[in-house]
């Protein structure tokens, strides 16, 4: 039991503790670019605590799905962190094609997110749900190609094993072709600019925020918490790809890995500060572009197999 706790539960526990820090860093970066002081770094934690202490209001239109959705979404999202090792001593749950379970756990979360939005009978939430559903449908194959690129360079059919092996991605071309589309997917899956603007104030233009309009109290807290965990999860994967060989399995990883996650959060903040949200009609093309780049990475590794 103790080995189970120390080996498998390290990643989810770290995710639970550290996840709200990522939006905190993003907000601080954006404030810096706007010339403001910004909210404290730990503001997301305070928000979560505040929301958990509030009471809930449920719409009269909703059914059990609306009440169960935050719990299911939170559990499914947290479960995905089981597969990705944080440090080398935290053993991930690895098995053949674990990434499918991972991607479909995220899909399960999305499914209930969409249904809970439609359950409120609000036109705005339906609009957000529609966008979320369609953009994620386009993003899903792109995500898989990105994962497969990383796994192919490591010759491993398990994403957990691929990310915990000592040399995740060796040459610079593969690093770029793996990490760049992943970063675009991170922005898309987590509803960041240029796909969605988390700070917009017009319901008509939102995707993620409008879907949780009717959530309140602990339910809203769980939704926000799962969003943070998901952001942490994607940042961690990119950090693992970028982590240099020499830092793996040495004490250096305890400094470098958190630093990389922090840098990725800063990058998201920079992107959000210098870019505007693209028109919703253009979003599929952006995702398509990411897919093409990722596919290029795959073909580069296929050409190595051919005899010329």
């Amino acid at each position: 039991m103790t080995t189970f706790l120390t080996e498998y539960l390290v990643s989810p526990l770290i995710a639970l503790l550290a996840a709200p820090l990522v939006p905190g860093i993003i907000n601080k970066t954006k404030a810096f670019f706007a010339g403001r002081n910004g909210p404290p770094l730990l503001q997301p934690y305070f928000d979560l605590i505040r929301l958990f202490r509030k009471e809930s209001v449920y719409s009269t239109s909703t059914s059990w799905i609306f009440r169960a959705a935050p719990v299911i979404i939170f559990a499914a999202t947290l479960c995905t962190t089981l597969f990705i090792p944080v440090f080398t001593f935290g053993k991930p749950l690895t098995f053949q094609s674990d990434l499918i379970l991972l991607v479909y756990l995220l899909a399960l979360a999305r499914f209930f997110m969409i249904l809970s939005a439609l359950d409120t009978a609000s036109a705005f939430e339906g609009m957000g749900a529609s966008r979320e559903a369609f953009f994620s449908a386009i993003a899903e194959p792109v995500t898989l190609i990105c994962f497969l690129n990383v796994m192919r360079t490591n010759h491993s059919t398990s994403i957990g094993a691929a990310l915990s092996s000592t040399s995740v991605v060796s040459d610079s071309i593969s690093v770029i072709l793996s990490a760049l589309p992943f970063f675009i997917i991170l922005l898309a899956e987590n509803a960041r600019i240029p796909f969605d603007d988390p700070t917009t104030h017009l319901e008509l233009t939102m995707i993620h925020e409008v879907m949780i309009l009717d959530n309140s109290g602990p339910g809203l807290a769980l939704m926000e918490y799962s969003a943070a965990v998901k952001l942490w999860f994607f940042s961690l994967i990119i950090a693992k790809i970028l982590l240099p060989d020499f830092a793996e399995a040495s004490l250096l990883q305890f400094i470098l890995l958190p630093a990389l996650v922090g840098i990725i959060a800063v990058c998201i903040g920079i992107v959000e500060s210098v870019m505007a949200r693209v028109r919703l009609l253009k979003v599929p093309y952006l995702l398509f572009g990411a897919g093409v780049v990722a596919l290029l990475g795959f073909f580069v590794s296929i050409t190595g197999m051919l005899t010329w």
Partner: protein
Amino acid sequence: MNLLTIVLLYGSLLLFFGTASLIPIFRKGLSARICPLSISIISLLAAGTTITLSFLQPCIPGLHFEGWQLPFTNFSAGIDQLSTLFLIPLMLVTFSSALFGPSYLAAHPAGRMHWFFFSLLVVAMTAVLLAKNAFFFIISWETMSLAAYVLIVTANRESATIKAGWIFMVMAHVGTALLLALFFYIGSITGSYEFSVWNHHTFLPFEKNVIFILSLCAFGCKAGFIPFHLWLPLAHPAAPAHVSALLSGIMIKMGVYGIIRMLSFLAPFHAWWGITLVIIGGISALGGILFALGQQSIKRMLAFSSIENIGIIGIAAGLGISASASHEPTVTLFAFSGMFFHIISHSLFKSMLFLGAGTVIHATGTGDINRLGGLIKSMRTASNLFLIGTAALCGLPLMSGFIGELFIYTAGITGAIDTASPLVSLVSMAAVIIIALTGGLAITGFTALFGAAFLGEKRSEYHGHTEKPGRSMITAMTVPAVATMAIGIGSFFILPWCLGPVGILLHRTVPVTFTIPVFSLAFKTSAVLFIAAGLALITALMLRIINRKKNPPAKSPTWDCGYIAPDASMQYTSTSFSAPAISFFRRLVMPQQHLDRSTTLFPEKPWRFRTIVDDWFITRLLAPLSHKLQTLIARLHWLQNGKSEQYVFYIVITVTGIILWKLVLK
């Protein structure tokens, strides 16, 4: 001994269905209740026996027994693991459909002989699965098509139903004609019409290619691969709900069974068959789900989604074939076991969804998603069961749909990453991308369906039969729903069913060591699913503890973003929900948009905007083509003018021709 039991069981089943179904000829009122009841009891017994025996003796070596000897053929039949795989869902779905039927027919009366043809359909499908002789097979096949045709056209007296039946009939007979050609071709090569002879015959590469193409087209018409899918979206909505469940859950799988049975004679496979199947499967999967997205009727949407799932089965088959041609055992095993798993799982959840659509139509009087809403409040159990089916269809974890896709994905991932052959890598990657895109679009389409029809607020007043579905309807839906969840959570229990036919298909015994990764994946997936469920429980408990300290949750209307008079008609409909996807893929789907705008400066009547996604294979391809064909053929009308003396004259000409040919030949 066990085999004998199975054979006796199915024999008695045939006998009983035959006699039971004769009752409607004599007494009407009584038979409408007794027939379906007896059918459901017997099919449940048959399902139970087959399942128990397949667990007691997992390796059925295959049994062959001679039937009636006829001058040109004999009705030999047999049962092996491939038949068992299809028989179990057939019996389970028959049970549910027969249980569901009476209450549905009470509100939507069908033809007098409904239950006769229903049992005939079931018996014919059982015979197709047991047939071990080409003639027996084709007779059963034709009986199956005809019984299904009668069930479709006697559903109601609408012209759309007659048209649907007509297209079904044409497609069925295109298939049968090709099937005859296929069987005569193989018969002329092997000199026999016994499957056991075909099984041991070594075909030349050219012969193999011809057999593959012919069987793909012949059985493709029944399975519903695009472009052979034409009848599916018309016939499934036209038939009564419990018949659509049987058609979509089982009958289209008979096409898959036919292809697999033919392939089992042909091992070792050619790589290009696999590529062809991946392409056809990919087109069917993507096309099916894209057309499904634009539908407004629940049953039409489900019908298109069946095309999608048949496409996924085709992709899995193609992946397995090309991997087996390139000697990649792991990919082959995962692809084929995933395919067999998906066949079982799709049979269960799709028939359940059709029954669910039946309850909706029964309760509300409409199957138009955009007119429904809030059903989860008025029919809670049925809605929750429908949710299980929807989740399974989207391939979400905890449901059977996930496990099938997981295995197919595993084949694709292993093929894309861990093989020495670039061909398998490329085919696998294509398969993974298509299945992922299809899966994402399935979530879009079916959250739209479930969200619009079952969640939110009621959009219009219903004029249905009853407010709540009866107990027999709920029971009929519960059985496949529970089975779907059970094999989704404990998939390893039924893995022997899916691994057994792989050996038959590949014509060799699969070593036990090869099956270990499949079992290990199933076990580990179940373990993670338990962890996820545990996490959800812990979160729910903690939330409960947090909430307990406070006042009970307050109730209020949905926040209306400042608008003061929100209305149920303002909710996002299913059509508007899937509009972004439809407009992105508009070149493939070709939606038609109609706008009735008023021309006056001050509009007197409201503007109306409609988007219709029609199956353009019929409206733009088949209709003009058949029109041209008709004008061409009209010139030959004088040949068939209804005068018997002229027909006799044709016979004279034919006989003379044969005599002359014989004389010249000598």
